[in-house]
């Protein structure tokens, strides 16, 4: 039986590592690797490049942290209760996304939709909290134009917020596609990429809440 015909038909390497290993061991023999591996790896490379972009924003923020130009400092602005709630929302959302991947693995339309809905609602709650925080800053005269510190803060955290918004659109698309087209192999590949994206956003948020919010609210004499 030719592998390429099988691939087109139903991608037999799915969930069957023995078969996958037969085709490509990952040690330079066999191959080509199954489409799922290639798609996942390519998207992983994209995510790493996205992380590198964020690292430039982190570096900018760290350099400009003390350049408040007489405006409010991080310690005066940040409300850690809000940050804790945002963190809880995003972590729970990431977990729900993991549950959605297990539901997809079980081919359960109901649980897939439920888990994705929970993922999306928690992500939306995160965005609402962030928007409220941002508008509160702007209302206090601490908008992105106030100081170099605030410009870099809004760029860094806002860029993460834009990623989450884009992720929510993608999530809605995935729900609709699973509903309308079922667990087709190409849809599952898209969902694999989505779940990688969503988990990666949570990793970036870990860096933001720890290094921007928590370190930012330490007393100034404790900072390097």
């Amino acid at each position, binding site marked *: 039986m030719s592998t390429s015909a099988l691939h087109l038909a139903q991608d037999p390497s799915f969930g*069957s590592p023995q078969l996958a290993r037969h085709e490509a061991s990952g040690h330079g023999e066999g191959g080509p690797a199954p489409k799922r591996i290639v798609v996942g790896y390519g998207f992983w490379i994209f995510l*790493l490049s996205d992380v590198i972009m964020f690292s430039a924003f982190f570096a900018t923020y*760290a350099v400009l942290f003390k350049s408040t130009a007489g405006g409010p400092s991080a310690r005066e602005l940040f409300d850690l209760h809000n940050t804790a709630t945002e963190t809880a929302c995003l972590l729970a959302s990431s977990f729900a996304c993991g549950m959605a991947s*297990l539901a997809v693995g079980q081919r359960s339309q109901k649980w897939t939709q439920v888990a994705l809905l929970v993922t999306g609602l928690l992500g939306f709650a995160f965005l609402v909290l962030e928007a409220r925080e941002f508008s509160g800053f702007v209302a206090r005269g601490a908008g992105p134009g106030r100081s170099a510190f605030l410009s870099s803060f809004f760029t860094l955290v806002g860029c993460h917020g834009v990623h989450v918004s884009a992720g929510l659109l993608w999530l809605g698309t995935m729900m609709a596609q699973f509903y309308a087209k079922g667990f087709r192999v190409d849809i599952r590949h898209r969902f694999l990429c989505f779940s990688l994206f969503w988990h990666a956003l949570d990793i970036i948020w870990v860096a933001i809440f720890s*290094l921007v919010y*928590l370190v930012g609210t330490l007393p100034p004499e404790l900072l390097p």
Partner: protein
Amino acid sequence: MSNEFEYDAGSYVGSDRVPGGPTEEGSGLRREVRGYLLGLALAVVLTIASFWAVETHAIYRPGAAVALLVLAVAQMGIHLVFFLHITTDPDNANNSLALAFGALIVCLVVFGSLWVMSHLNHNMVPLHQLMQMQS
């Protein structure tokens, strides 16, 4: 179910029916749910530890910023292992190597920028002195 399969059955988004019958598949699912729950529990513990580290005097206060950095890196590791399933498995080598290279670039960008900018800052003539020199 052979050991070889156990070793490979980490979370597959969209795995087909695995060979071995429904009962073993059920236990595989339970194991995967347990994996996610363990990851969630560890992430929650580390998050609480981070928020606690801001307030507490239990850790040496001037080390608080470093403690927060360490906790953040640990939590990112937990997310990578339990949610993204980046492991040290041989068939994960490409993913881990790409991650290692990404981490190298991130460290170069962040610490390199801080290092260069602090030196520039240190060597720069203060603004009011610069004005005096020009007048």
